């Protein structure tokens, strides 16, 4: 397996307050990582730093061999467009565009494929995520679950190497949440590396590996192995994870 992300001595401060303190870890291609921790532990800050959306105070973040903290705006934007996908807690779709237009946008911007091909890929993603019937809809007129699925389609349209998620199911009900997680697992099984921040045990239990943050440091790591979707195994993974977290006072 190839290491696609290497984080070395990552520190991040906001004024006097240090949020991340010498964080070190590596992520291999095709892995599914869940970052967990208490509120204020620095997990979202870590995610935004390693995805290049925020600059670290010090340390190196080598993504695909490049130190993304040192890339200029044009280059980091290109990396984001070509190699990264991002799902937020809220869908953050552009409100003046329809569902389909929102998804098509990064594909058109990248310009790697013809516009017809991008449209075909979008249609396939819409079917895959079950929102093909709302493709032309106004984003204000569809449900939260449909919006989040659209956000996933948008994150995947350029077939990224790595997908980042910040509480991607945090605003959804449990059944929608399960469906979204199924989609993410499918993507991961197809080869896309996934790194999620969550405080939901059910979400984290889908990951291969869990990184637990405490006061800006990696306090512990837990390896669960690949998720197979079998109900009994899922319950066992959740139980293991729950007990592990309980010891950490989570």
């Amino acid at each position: 397996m190839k290491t696609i992300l290497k984080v070395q001595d990552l520190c991040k401060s906001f004024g006097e307050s240090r949020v991340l303190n010498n964080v070190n870890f590596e992520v291999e291609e095709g892995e599914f990582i869940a970052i967990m921790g208490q509120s204020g532990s620095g997990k979202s800050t870590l995610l935004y730093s390693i995805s290049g959306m925020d600059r670290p105070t010090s340390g190196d973040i080598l993504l695909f061999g490049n130190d993304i903290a040192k890339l200029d705006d044009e280059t980091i934007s290109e990396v984001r467009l070509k190699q990264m996908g991002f799902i937020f807690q809220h869908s953050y779709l552009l409100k003046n565009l329809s569902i389909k237009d929102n998804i098509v946008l990064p594909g058109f911007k990248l310009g790697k494929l013809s516009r017809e091909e991008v449209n075909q890929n979008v249609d396939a993603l819409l079917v895959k995520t079950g929102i093909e019937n709302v493709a032309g809809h106004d984003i204000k007129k569809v449900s939260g679950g449909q919006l989040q699925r659209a956000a996933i389609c948008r994150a995947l349209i350029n077939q990224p190497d790595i997908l980042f998620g910040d509480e991607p199911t945090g605003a959804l009900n449990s059944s929608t949440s399960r469906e979204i997680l199924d989609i993410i697992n499918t993507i991961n099984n197809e080869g896309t590396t996934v790194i999620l921040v969550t405080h939901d045990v059910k979400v984290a239990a889908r990951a291969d590996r869990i990184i637990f943050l405490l006061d800006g440091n990696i306090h512990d790591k837990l390896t669960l192995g690949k998720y197979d979707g079998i109900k009994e195994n899922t319950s066992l993974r959740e139980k293991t994870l729950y007990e592990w977290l309980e010891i950490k006072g989570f």
Partner: protein
Amino acid sequence: MNWLIVKNDFKRNKAINLALLLFMMFSAGLAVLSVIMGVQTFTSISNLYEKAQPPHFLQMHKGEINLEEIDAFMSEQDGVTYWQTVTMINVHGESLTTAGNNDQFNLSDLRIDIGLVKQNETRDLLVNAKHEKVILGEGELGMPVLLRERYDMEMGDPIILTYNDVQREFVIKEFILDSQMNSPMVSSTRILLNDQDFDMLAEEAGEKEYLIESYFANTNEASNFQTAYENAELPQNGQAVTYAMIFLLSAITDITIVFVLLLVSLLLIMVSFICVKFTIMAALEEDLSEIGTMKAIGLPFEDIRGIYINKYRALALVGVILGYTVALLSSGVFTNHISTTFGDMSMSPLTVILSILVACFTFLLMNLYCKRVLKKINKVTVVDALVTGKGFGKEEDFIKDGLYQSKKLSVNWLMAIREVFYRFKNWIIVFSVVLIAVLMTLVPINLMNTFESPEFITYMGSSLEDILIEVQDGENLESNYERVIEVLESDAGVEGYYEYRRVRVQTMNADNDLMNLHIDSGEHSGNELQYLSGAAPGADNEIAISYLNANEIDKEVGERMVLFYGNEEMEFVISGIYQDVTSGGYTAKSKYDFPELDSEKYSFSVNLQDNTQVEKKADEWSESMGPGANVDPMEEFINQTLGGVVIQLKTIVAAIVIIGVCLVMLITVLFLKLRLAKDLSEIAILKALGFSELDIKKQYMIKIGSVSLIGIIAGIILTRLLGERIVNLVLMISGLGIREVELIANPLVQYILVPLLLLASILSVTWIVLRIIKRYHIISIINE
């Protein structure tokens, strides 16, 4: 408590509040300034006229004069309260040499006639800037302010008069205001001398011209008096001018400027109100959750509005006071021309009262307007404010699907154009301000261009030729005429010429009284004029009449009018009505040459084969035709008659262009800052998707650029549609004899330079403001 909130708000939203304050200050200041300018123009002129007492009717005359005959006639006229005959010694510019600023030069380039006069006793006085009658000692001279401006003269400068064999040296003691000849549009100017100097020169130098001046109890009697005077065959070898014409010719420059300033003020006030609304809405959007919370805890609408209205009241009050102060302080700059031309005038109580009233009215208007805008608070529900975040905007009813169908257009263009196309109302402020700036800039520019254009002469009642020759010396009229013909016929440089003969006939006015009609007759008479309606006379029984004459006799094109001359009468059909400012605006044109009548005047429109030789030829002919003929190169004639207006307009136009450019830049900055703040989340999303800062900047440049372009195009169209109507409305009100002017635009300026200047200014500030995008981080949407 409210004031505490207001105070905190001022601290919190410094930029927005400052911008709002500036707009309120602008609105109030300009409104006050327009009033000051307008009132000062009329009060200054009135004051000067009250002191200097220009004649109600003035007949100029060159040649012999019989004062007893005139006195006898005047004393028989019922309405005449006073009369006097003023003697002028006519000299030419080249006879006067000045030596100011180490630079000796003579006034040979001055085309207008110069008359040396002595001070009158009680009426038609030449006064100083304080409106005091000027009394000079021997060797002293009073120079008209018109020439001070033109030649940069100073008090104490020596003036050497050289005429025939006479040479006298004078010193400028005063700059004088001449109530009847202070406009460059009047073809003469007067220089004041001491009585002894004048009497001595009267015997030695120059030819004499007389100003036969009459005063009436009612100035409206001038027209009837003119008919009676002319019919009495009294001296009339020269222009006749009425009081109303003197007033209007004096004031045209300042009236034009007041009009331009008023137009600009009105447009700026409109812009200010648009901005006030925009900034209030932006502030309300920003305070949406606070408003929602206040509503949720049960504060009634009036109380919530009260918090805001106090703030805007305070802003409006400070803005109006500042605007008023700035207007008062800067009014000196704008009224400078008024005080130079009409004398130093302290601000009249009427000006003070009116300007305070206008300031109060502006304050009330702003209050009302703010109250109206703030009504929106009532419409927003707690759910809109706190839950859906819909805010104050109307339901954005449709999302236009279809970006995915685009085949070629780059994503940045696609997004920007779609935004402008489908969400134009979001950009309406930029559109409106650019449109107003174009209108505000182009109307005065086109007006200036029109005044400068040679074609403008055709609106003034003259045809457009290279050289205009006028012969109007009563006694030697025919011999002078022969001499002109002789010169023109023998000159190989002449391509062609038209001659017109002026005769005087009578006709009935609207009240069925006889009135005089001066007709320029000739084969081509009236051919090159611009007609308000109808056309030039095509047959011998057709006549074209000036606009003022048409009003006087109350007839339209196609109607018949009877002309009485000698013992005959003849019926004519009115073929056309044209506008005219020459000869007091009361003229007519016909092909029929009235052989029975004596000529009053001859004029010749001459075209040269080589029109680069116009100046040279005019000088040459002026020399060879002698003093009986006035030879004027048309372009120079226009420059000198309209030059004053053009110079003033140029200054104003330059100021307006600067104001227009600053305005669009200021609005763009303000709008864009608020727009970017509103679009923060969208920008962050785009960045997260992989759009670079440059991409986002490009999108805004395209949005602002295309909205501005649409605004510019709309502005140009509106200028073409409304510009002339606005100008013509003012001309009609002014009663100058011009009712309609086709604005002559310079295509390079109208279609290229002004649009490019505005667009470049807008795009350059847009680019500067867009640097802020660098500071917008993706995580800001998470922290929002």
